[in-house]
């Protein structure tokens, strides 16, 4: 029997019982739809994290001091990053921007309004490293840094809190404790980051200003952190190696001893987060595919019922010349067609649900072509796998007793 006749026979047989065909497909529809939803939400959140991280600067490198033990004795104080390190990092091959970071908690006051936040002492490069833009005014300069200038650049949240939204704070002074800081610039709004932190709740001041004027700071010559930016995303690792070399040299660390600092590249973070979301996606998809198996068993169940119910039809087909193979293929293709159509409907619904859900959760909408392709193959395989035994049962019937079946 030709393939076209085979498909024709199977489809007409399925159309004879539309309601049941649909109910049989339902399991597959739900299974495939949930797999598609899981995979595409997983991928969209991965993508979301990626774009979030790269908006923070995908070639950003963070250097943090670390307590260091040598022979069981604490020799470092956790204040290993110094002005000297900053200087040497400014003359390197793979590092383009460097900015130290020191911070201080402060109550910000303007007129009758106040806001508790933290001051972050950085150098002008910080803007480039963290990919902040200026909404108005200017960033402070190296000259401001040299002179411990009492200036600041603030984020949109600070503007809203202290000045009221829409107000122009440029030129006005905020009081931080006893120190007045003149606002010389406002940062472009960045919104919340992946962890839900408000990235606009920020006050940038020259790091020297923090070190010299905010008495609470114990470590006048040390930095909490150094931010750097590699020349390119690809060169992040090279830059990290270079920084390690320079800092070990600066800190006189002997070969074999551990670093007294910790370097984190954005690339590392990215791959860590990606692998976490990938595992999660895989896990969720695995759970979802259980419903696919249940759907497949549903098909097998119905195919068994169908074969028994259509015993006389099978006998008749054999009597008029259907070979065993023809009968086998007919029932097999019925189950494959069922699961494929179920799969198509499932993919369709899955994409719609994923779309709605991603809009709802504020995620980018990702159509995973590989998930669609794999779903399709899985459906065909499900049809064959779960249709096999019922089809074989049909093909092995004895035509005479099948024809007599009541």
């Amino acid at each position, binding site marked *: *029997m*030709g393939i076209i*006749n085979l498909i*024709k*026979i199977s489809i*007409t047989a399925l159309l*004879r*019982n539309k309601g049941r065909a649909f109910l049989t497909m339902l399991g597959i529809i739900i299974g495939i739809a949930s797999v598609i939803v899981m995979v595409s939400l997983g991928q969209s959140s991965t993508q979301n994290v990626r774009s979030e991280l790269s908006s923070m600067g995908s070639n950003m490198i963070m250097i943090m001091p670390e307590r260091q033990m040598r022979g069981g004795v604490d020799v470092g104080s956790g204040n290993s990053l110094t002005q000297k390190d900053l200087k040497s990092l400014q003359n390197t091959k793979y590092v383009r921007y460097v900015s130290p970071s020191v911070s201080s908690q402060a109550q910000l006051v303007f007129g009758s309004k106040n806001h508790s936040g933290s001051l972050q002492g950085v150098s002008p490069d910080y803007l480039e490293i963290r990919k902040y833009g200026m909404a108005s005014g200017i960033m402070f300069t190296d000259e401001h840094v040299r002179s411990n200038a009492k200036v600041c650049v603030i984020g949109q949240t600070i503007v809203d809190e202290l000045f009221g939204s829409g107000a122009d704070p440029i030129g006005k002074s905020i009081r931080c404790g006893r120190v007045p800081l003149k606002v010389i610039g406002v940062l472009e709004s960045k919104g919340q980051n992946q962890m839900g932190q408000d990235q606009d709740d920020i006050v940038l001041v020259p790091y020297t200003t923090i070190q010299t004027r905010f008495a609470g700071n114990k470590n006048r010559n040390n930095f909490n952190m150094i931010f750097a930016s590699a020349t390119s995303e690809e060169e992040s690792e090279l830059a990290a190696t270079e920084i390690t070399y320079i800092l070990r040299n600066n800190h006189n660390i002997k070969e074999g001893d551990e670093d007294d600092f910790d370097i984190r590249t954005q690339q590392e973070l990215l791959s860590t987060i990606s692998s976490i979301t990938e595992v999660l996606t895989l896990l969720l998809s695995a759970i979802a595919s259980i419903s696919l198996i249940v759907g497949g068993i549903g098909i097998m169940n119905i195919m068994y019922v169908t074969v028994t119910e259509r015993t*006389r*039809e099978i*006998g*008749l*087909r*054999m*009597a*008029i*010349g*259907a*070979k*065993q*193979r*023809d009968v086998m293929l007919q029932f097999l293709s019925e189950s494959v067609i069922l699961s494929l159509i179920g799969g198509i409907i499932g993919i369709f619904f899955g994409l719609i649900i994923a779309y709605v859900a991603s809009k709802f959760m504020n995620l980018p909408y990702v159509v995973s072509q590989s998930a669609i392709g794999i779903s399709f193959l899985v459906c065909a395989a499900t049809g064959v796998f779960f249709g096999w035994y019922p089809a074989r049962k049909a093909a092995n019937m004895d*035509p*005479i007793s099948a*024809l007599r079946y009541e």
Partner: protein
Amino acid sequence: MENQEVIQIRDLHRDFQVGSETVHALNGINLKIFQGEFVSIMGTSGSGKSTLLNILGCLDTPTSGEYIIHGTSVSTLNKNQLSELRNRRIGFVFQNYNLLPRTSALDNVQLPLMYNPDISSKERKERALHALEAVKLADRIHHQPNQLSGGQQQRVAIARAIVNDPVILLADEATGNLDTRTSYEIMTLFQELHSKGKTIAFVTHEPDIATFTTRTVKLRDGKIILDENITQQSAATALAEYEKNMKHDQI
């Protein structure tokens, strides 16, 4: 073509094993059926009629003995070849019609040709229409079985049996489910097909139905106890007679 053997059976046995006992359903059958014969196979219940017909139709294979259909010895064929033989050379009519439910008469009749890859869909449809015309159902081709009377359903089944132009038409109690009048109609149809040259083997246990054939073979306990040519009665005449009597009875 006259006097050519369509079917040739020599010392045919068919045993069934039921538990420890062996049932000799057919016990040494010798039979030849010639081109253009209309044979009725008679006998009491359990005498082996259906068993014989199933073997004639290559649905079943003999335990021993030889069966040659249209020059082909059946015992040499494998399952697939038997299927093909049924598809190309045999037409079956069953007592309970065995039409596919929720399927139009036209599609039901086309079914055997679906299993013949040499026949295009166009030719398939033409031949099915032709067969439905031959059974006088040209105006019912799109009806489904549940929209047809028993007699009409059996006509569809007959059309399906002749659509592949078989060398022999096999019917097992084809009138068994029908009332007298409809039985006569179906027999009229069989006689028409016979007069056009079809070879027919017809199982029945109604003696009056057997009179419409040209030869009677009687079985008892798996053996042929009588095999004679008879004078064929006209089913059309019997039908007319019957209808006249019915009218008479009503008055």
